[in-house]
């Protein structure tokens, strides 16, 4: 396997190996660019992945101390693509123009500096890479019991756009990975690799190029720069606690929102007193989590929703923007199911209103809502001024409050979801009433046309630092409604093409 010297300043250093980091690293390596990928977590094999949610949460969850609402991240090679559900709708044209489409003038909502049209070729490539159902020559995902309930109920209430398209879990064997066996433990890592994860796609493919080295258990602490403001390398701690500096020609940061923020803010200097790339003051701000919620229903007959992949179909009729609903943006309803502890873990209630669902566990159908979350500067991640974690790093502090738009959307979505199951005679219904522990993560280093409004340009290149790129969901200018991974991957493919081209032109 290829290795690089710490002093080799011709390499691009990629920090993180999930959807953003794993993809940008592989796409660079495929073009012959030498890459060193530093990943804080360890590297699992399929033998390490078990159908055991509590054990896997310990093994791959990011468990370092944080203050504030929970975030659903992983510290492992593959990042959160090991844990994700695999749902991959594209963002819509109007969602890239959030400010123009929605107004929301009291928020910090902006338009993206790029359009759907510009991203479409990269969506095509991302769907092909990830094996998304219903795209190219890939069949639709098989219809599971939970999906069939969703489909029947949604049809009864008049919805039309109900589909098992947009699932990045192989319906049939493809690209060296098997077809889905309906294990039902997607969130604990796919034991057979049917669900796309950079752990067993992008990372080994990059290694096969001879232009890539991954160093697991390598936690990056700081990005260094020279007196002209260009980054020159990164300082990281290896598994034995030893510090190293890896030199770099350019750096791509893809640590997911909390670690991307912590790293940029921790890399402050005389030249960048508020943190690296933070001349606008926007680093850590505009954290968007999506409006989320769950509807669970006890149905008149058995569903056994857990005997299948967790998420495998969706209703898209509420995705468009319709002012008459009383909120901006739209939402998607997607099947949801899980082990008994996962079901109860997503319910905030207790007593018989909760156990009515586990007592009839085999009769439970469920859906999950993800919807547009307006950007707000006050929803932010900062570093605690004094408190340090076990490794001596400043503890991240998350502050997040629902916007009234989100409260209105969640209420609408919960009623809409409940109506689907009521139409089929559900005997008990549960609806989320507040922020859930689950979230998608976007926006803390957002793209902006005007450098005053964000952290990067439309390539994810920092406005303030020419050879520093942000390669994860942190760059989203708005959240849109759909699950973010496909868009992160498409942006990473596009960014890698841009970086390689700039390097060929000797501009980087």
């Amino acid at each position, binding site marked *: 396997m290829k290795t690089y010297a710490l002093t080799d300043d011709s390499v691009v250093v990629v920090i993180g190996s999930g959807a953003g980091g794993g993809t940008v690293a592989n796409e660079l390596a495929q073009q012959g660019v030498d890459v060193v990928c530093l990943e804080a977590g360890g590297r699992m094999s399929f033998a390490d992945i078990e159908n055991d949610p509590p054990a896997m949460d310990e093994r791959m969850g990011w468990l370092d101390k944080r203050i504030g609402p929970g975030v659903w991240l992983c510290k492992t090679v593959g990042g959160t693509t090991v844990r994700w559900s695999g749902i991959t709708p594209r963002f819509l044209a109007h969602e890239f123009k959030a400010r123009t489409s929605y107004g929301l003038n009291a928020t910090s909502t902006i338009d993206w500096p790029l359009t759907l049209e510009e991203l479409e070729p990269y969506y095509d490539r991302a769907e092909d890479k990830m094996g998304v159902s219903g795209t190219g020559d890939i069949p639709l995902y098989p219809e599971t019991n939970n999906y*069939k309930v969703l489909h029947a109920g949604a049809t009864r209430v008049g919805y039309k756009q109900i589909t098992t398209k947009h699932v990045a879990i192989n319906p049939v064997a493809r690209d060296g990975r098997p077809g889905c066996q309906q294990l039902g433990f997607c969130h604990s890592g796919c*034991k057979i690799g049917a669900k796309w994860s950079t752990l067993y796609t992008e990372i080994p493919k990059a290694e096969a190029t001879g232009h890539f080295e991954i160093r697991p258990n390598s936690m990056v602490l700081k990005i260094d720069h020279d007196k002209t403001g260009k980054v020159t390398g990164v300082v990281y701690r290896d598994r034995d606690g030893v510090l190293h500096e890896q030199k770099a020609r350019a750096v791509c940061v893809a640590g997911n929102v909390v670690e991307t923020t912590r790293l940029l803010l921790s890399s402050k200097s005389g030249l960048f007193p508020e943190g690296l790339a933070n001349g606008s003051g926007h680093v850590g701000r505009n954290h968007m989590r999506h409006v989320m919620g769950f509807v669970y229903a006890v149905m008149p007959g058995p*569903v056994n929703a857990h005997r*299948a992949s967790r998420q495998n179909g969706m209703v898209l009729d509420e995705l468009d923007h319709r002012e008459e609903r009383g909120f901006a943006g739209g939402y998607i309803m997607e099947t949801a199911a899980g082990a008994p502890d996962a079901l109860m873990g997503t319910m905030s209630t207790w007593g018989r209103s909760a*156990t009515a669902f*586990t*007592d009839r566990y085999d009769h439970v159908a469920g859906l999950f809502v993800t919807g547009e979350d307006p950007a707000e500067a006050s929803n932010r991640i900062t570093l605690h001024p004094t408190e340090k974690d076990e490794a001596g790093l400043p503890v991240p502090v998350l502050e997040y409050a629902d916007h009234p738009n989100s409260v209105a959307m969640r209420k609408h979505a919960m009623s809409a979801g409940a109506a689907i199951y009521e139409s089929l005679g559900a005997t008990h219904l549960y609806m989320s009433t507040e922020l859930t522990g689950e979230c998608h993560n976007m926006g803390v280093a957002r793209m902006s046309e005007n450098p005053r409004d964000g952290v990067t340009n439309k390539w994810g290149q920092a406005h303030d630092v020419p050879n520093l790129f942000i390669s994860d969901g942190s760059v989203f200018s708005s959240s849109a409604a759909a699950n973010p991974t496909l868009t992160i991957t498409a942006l990473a493919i596009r960014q890698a093409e841009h970086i390689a081209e700039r390097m060929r032109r000797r501009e980087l």
Partner: protein
Amino acid sequence: MRTRRRFIAATGQATLGVWVVTSNAHGALAETLSVLEADTRLLQTLARVARLIYPHDGLSDSVYVRIVGDLLGDPQNTATLSIGAANLGEFLELDEAQQIAALQRIENGPFFNAVKTPLMGALYNSPELWTMIDYAGPSFPFGGYINRGFDDIDWLPTS
């Protein structure tokens, strides 16, 4: 494969055993009995609280007792659980509606969540609950549900 379940089962029983031994080691029979009585009452109160948080008529008291015993065995929880239970007063003498009302008054406090959060993890990963709801646990060993009914629903209306 089921390490955590064996762990839960083993530590629950061990906790109760250790208490009896340490109490006897203190010597005086009366003291031993009063310690045991207080411990028993604390355990009964917590088990009752646990059953009211996640009431399953199909589960025996021993499941709830084992889980709260396990919680009490962790020194980090002892103060929160003992004080919280003491603040409930003559909880065991109340009727069920009164007990639920008492818990509703404290449902956002530290004691309630010190019971509820770990109870959720332990109860819904317990072998007794899995058996009761016919949940098979890990599916990889038998090849998942691709040939075991992932799409076998037969009662849905056709229109």
